[in-house]
């Protein structure tokens, strides 16, 4: 098996491009998401993205605010108790981002169908209401007949909605821990990451911790993402910051509110980007930005015990630096 470790800058340069269909995971608004990958996409000035975003997150909030999102398919675009996603909503209201609404359940089964290589999936959700009737792709037709067409069950004659399945060009998936080959274990809700990892044409893992493969051999039932479907692995502690990573750190309440507030205007977004997008080059510099005190605070999580069984396989930074060097050879 290959050593797939790669830097965040290289991963974004190699696996993203303007106009692509990009999928972020877990796309949870408070918990797991590959936030740092989206930050780096903003730095590399990716644009015209077609985003598959099961739920909103600070990643898509930022990419929306900087005008990188041309179109988005989403089940829930907000930040839960942290509020509406100011940057994304601003782009939608200004007509810069077209938004195609589904429910969370529909997004999950559409990824499942993509993983199965099916053309569509039948379901009774979303039909007979405005997720079916309204489409940003066919705005002149109301009620829309093309977005979720009704089909007939050949066995019972009952009507179902037919949902177009999803096969994103690339998914950047946040995981708690991965080995250098791309086997990964996630703590907390998996949300849609299992299906997403199988539906996407290319997969980049963004891992808070790198572990030895012996960890997966001890808990093979929990290795829900396997190296077979993974193209690259990025090691990045606090990859989901300011959101949470179950077992490792809580969401940073101050930064969650503060960042969202800054997404409200172009000026403040620019100020935010100066620091958080362009103000670092390495993992160490990024952690300096977060600050030692804040890192201690968010790392004091009630979920820390969930990581206990895996700790002995976690590699330290010096070991990982060596592995990264070897990956380039």
């Amino acid at each position, binding site marked *: 098996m290959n050593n797939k470790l790669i830097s965040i800058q290289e991963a974004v340069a190699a696996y993203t491009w303007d106009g692509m269909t990009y999928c972020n995971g*877990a796309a*949870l608004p*408070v*918990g*797991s998401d590959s936030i740092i990958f989206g930050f780096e996409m903003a730095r590399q000035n990716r644009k015209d993205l077609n985003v598959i975003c*099961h*739920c909103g997150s600070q990643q898509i909030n930022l990419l929306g605010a900087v005008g990188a999102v041309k179109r988005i398919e989403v*089940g*829930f*675009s*907000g*930040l*839960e*108790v*942290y509020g*509406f996603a100011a940057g*994304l*909503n601003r782009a939608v*209201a200004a007509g810069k981002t*077209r*938004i195609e*609404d*589904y*429910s*969370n*359940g529909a*997004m*999950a*089964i559409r990824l499942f169908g993509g993983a199965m290589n099916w053309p569509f999936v039948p*379901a*009774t*959700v979303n*039909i*007979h*209401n*405005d997720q079916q*009737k*309204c*489409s*940003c792709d066919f*705005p*002149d037709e*109301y009620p829309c007949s093309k977005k979720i067409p009704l089909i007939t069950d050949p066995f019972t004659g009952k009507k179902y909605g037919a949902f177009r399945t999803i096969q994103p060009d690339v998914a950047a998936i946040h995981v708690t821990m991965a080995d250098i080959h791309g086997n990964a274990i996630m*703590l*907390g*809700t*998996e*949300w*849609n*990451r299992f*299906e997403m990892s199988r539906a996407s044409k290319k997969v980049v893992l963004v891992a808070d911790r790198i572990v030895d493969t012996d960890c997966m051999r001890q808990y093979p039932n929990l290795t829900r993402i396997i190296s077979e479907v993974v193209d690259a692995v990025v090691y990045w502690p606090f990859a989901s910051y300011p959101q*949470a990573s*179950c077992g490792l750190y809580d*969401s940073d309440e101050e930064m*969650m509110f503060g960042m969202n507030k800054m997404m409200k205007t172009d000026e403040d977004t620019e100020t935010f980007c100066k620091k958080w997008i362009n103000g670092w080059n390495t993992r160490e510099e990024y952690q300096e930005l977060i600050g030692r005190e804040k890192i201690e605070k968010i790392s004091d*999580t*009630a*979920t820390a*015990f*969930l990581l206990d069984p895996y700790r002995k396989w976690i590699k330290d930074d010096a070991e990982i630096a060596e592995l990264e060097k070897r990956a380039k050879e």
Partner: protein
Amino acid sequence: MEYTKQEFMAIATGREIRDNELIILGVGLSMLAGYFAKRNHAPNLRAFTEGGVYGATPVGGLPWGIECNRISSNAVSFTNAIDALGFLVSSGRTDNGVIGAAQVDKYGNVNTTGIWDEPPWKLGRYVPPRIRLNGSGGANDIAVGCKRYLIMASHESRRFMERVDYVSSPGYLDGGDARKKAGFVGGGPSAIISTLGILRPNPETKEFFLDAYFPFTSVEEIKDSTGWHLKVSPDVKQVPEPSERELKNLREVDATGSLRKSG
């Protein structure tokens, strides 16, 4: 006794939740109402979130989200959206759910997607909303699949509308047997609990009527705060005040006092 309208709404919603139910809880008020019920009178409630966080209770205050670490430190199982919203909800297995509404109409249809100057159904074409909200999230799946569900909403005439701008989560659609004809798995909303009172659907027409009002308001105030001609039950009654025990149990779940800050 001192309490906020939001606290009363959470307690009134919690009272609608029965022991031994399998229930899916959304973010915010929904979770507080659900875990209040579990602590107060429904110890055998089996609760899960749409992320498949099963068997957990909040630790450290109101969870910031359905996947927050505050709801992830004592779970029995973590699965995923397909399991929670698909295998447990869309299958018809789940007894009850709680969803919020930015707008709700007389048939219990809920809008959480956006606010339009002229909504698509009136305009005959889709245009982006003037104010984008969040979308349906898992609420549409809950509204379609749960055996019954509860709606929570702030009671104002601009929110309680004859027809909502956008149906994000279906109630009884156009009323009568429209929902049945649509072929949904679940039975529909059993109550709307607002900041002023409790509305229930007429068994035939499915139009929501006023069943009970909170002690600090009146039937007239509620009618004035409703955007359709609200029918009132001949047996309309006052909702009992929260008891000391209920408030204590709610505040133990709402450890950070989120419902006391919101007035």
